[in-house]
């Protein structure tokens, strides 16, 4: 197996990008990424696209060919592949390209994630997101995507005594980080009291516990490390990768206060590079809801089960704390454009490891992790990156 490095990144602001189409977003980030990598389209062997919902939000499938076409890559008839695993689509697209390069099939790939969630009404985009859970036996029974996470949150509160203020502290911390990220959808701070008193969506989860449904795109260029060295590229190495699945329906899991696929994917990623949780300098977590960040930190092994909420409340996951989490602002405050989210997480880690994160720079960051999951974590994908 060959080593694989990231040699270029491109990302848009996340939010309500009404003046931009999916193909335009794909083009902008793709061009930015190959410019950053200082390569040309002729150098690219394959294109991978993470996209969750174009079929239901844009009535457009086959977005791999669409993006390849508008990026000018059909001139060379590039192999273009779309990867879909609900909100884990981006992270999983990255993993496909990683495996193709590590396996020696190709040398250079562009991995893009793009999503348009605001071309449709709120209720339509919210329903599109819920398609990551079991449409027939959860959604059709009246269970919204938030209500499934609310049951998880309530179960975690009952098991470990997690409090309303601890949930709010996650959201508040992520907003604080986003206030230093010019590309974040909500680059402003919010205090715990405001979050704790926001409108109830599904008890105990309130509006400001929930990530938005955003438009956005992100792209990275992956290259075999040996080739990147020959080409003298600034690069960040992908040292670990892990993936796991779980039952599609939440109700088929034994314990509702866990998201086991995240823990298994993380364990596989750690094993693939012989690292441990304590080796990490920062993490991007898939905080589609505040409770997801708490449980993911427990699953990955940063904190013992039942302790993540308390430790986060005490500031251990804040910039300057023991292990900064979601320095980008996370899904909550940077924004959540499902197919693009997994790639946006990777780009935040790359910027941090390059030392280019500006005001939100984690000092001496050497190793970072990105955790991306889909549905109620029926798919989880975890990557570990190291500065070279």
């Amino acid at each position: 197996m060959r080593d694989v490095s990231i040699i270029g990144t491109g990302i848009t602001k996340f939010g309500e990008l009404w003046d931009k189409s999916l193909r335009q977003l794909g083009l902008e980030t793709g061009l930015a990424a190959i410019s950053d990598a200082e390569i040309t389209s002729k150098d690219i062997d394959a294109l991978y696209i993470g996209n969750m919902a174009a079929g239901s939000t844009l009535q457009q499938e086959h977005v791999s060919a669409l993006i390849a076409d508008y990026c000018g890559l059909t001139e060379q008839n590039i192999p273009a592949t779309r990867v879909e695993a609900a909100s884990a689509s981006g992270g999983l697209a990255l993993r496909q390209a990683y495996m193709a390069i590590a396996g020696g099939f190709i040398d250079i790939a562009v991995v893009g994630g793009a999503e348009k969630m605001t071309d449709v009404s709120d209720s339509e985009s919210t329903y599109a997101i819920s398609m990551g859970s079991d449409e027939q036996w959860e959604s059709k029974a009246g269970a919204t995507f938030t209500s499934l996470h609310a049951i998880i949150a309530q179960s975690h509160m009952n098991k470990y005594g997690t409090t309303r203020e601890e949930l709010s502290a996650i959201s508040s911390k992520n907003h604080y980080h986003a206030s230093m990220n010019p590309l974040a959808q909500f680059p402003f701070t919010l205090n715990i009291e405001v979050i704790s008193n926001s409108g109830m969506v599904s008890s105990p989860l309130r509006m400001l516990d929930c990530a938005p449904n955003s438009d956005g795109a992100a792209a990275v260029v992956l290259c075999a490390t040996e080739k990147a060295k020959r080409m003298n590229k600034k690069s960040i190495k992908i040292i670990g990768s892990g993936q796991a699945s779980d039952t599609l329906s939440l109700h088929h899991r034994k314990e509702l206060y866990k998201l086991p696929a995240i823990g298994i994917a993380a364990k596989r990623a750690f094993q693939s590079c012989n690292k441990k949780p304590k080796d990490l300098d920062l993490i991007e977590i898939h905080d589609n809801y505040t409770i997801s960040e708490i449980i993911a930190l427990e699953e990955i092994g940063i904190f013992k089960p039942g302790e993540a909420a308390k430790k986060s409340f005490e500031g251990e996951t804040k910039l300057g704390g023991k292990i900064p989490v979601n320095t980008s602002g996370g899904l909550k405050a940077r924004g959540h454009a499902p197919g693009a989210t997994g790639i946006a997480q990777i780009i935040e880690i790359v910027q941090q490891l390059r030392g280019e994160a500006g005001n939100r720079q984690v000092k001496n960051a050497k190793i970072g992790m990105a955790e991306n999951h889909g549905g109620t974590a029926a798919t989880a994908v975890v990557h570990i990156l190291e500065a070279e």
Partner: protein
Amino acid sequence: MSVPRFWRELDARYNLIGSHCKITDTYHYPRRSFNPKAGRESIGNMDDYQFKGTGEIIGATVVHQAQEGYEMFGPYCIAIIELDEGPRITSQIVDCEPKTVMPGMKVKSVFRKLGQDSESGILHYGTKFILIELPKTDNNDEETLNDIEL
């Protein structure tokens, strides 16, 4: 939802029909022709089984922002129920004050309308659950019950 897609699950939805695996003596809902725990030996050994419809609440939430088609119910309770035979199911708990539903409470199934495709579209019926014993609160008077569930 398309007619065939709903139609082929009618008995599962109306009558709580699932499967019993003869190899492991375990129950499954919804119906499966293959038991992941028993592997391919289970194929041909999964018999239809009608659940008694009684069970216990494992987790619950009150939905304030209803999904499309469920606005008339809001706020409503969605819960994960463990049926007495073992399998779990996600369903709405009706005929009670939604916030009083707690893990550990006993429930039984009832036949109700789930929704409809459009104003003139086909109606979807299926199973919801009610509490076997209503909790003793001030809100359990007739008027409140009528307000919550028609």
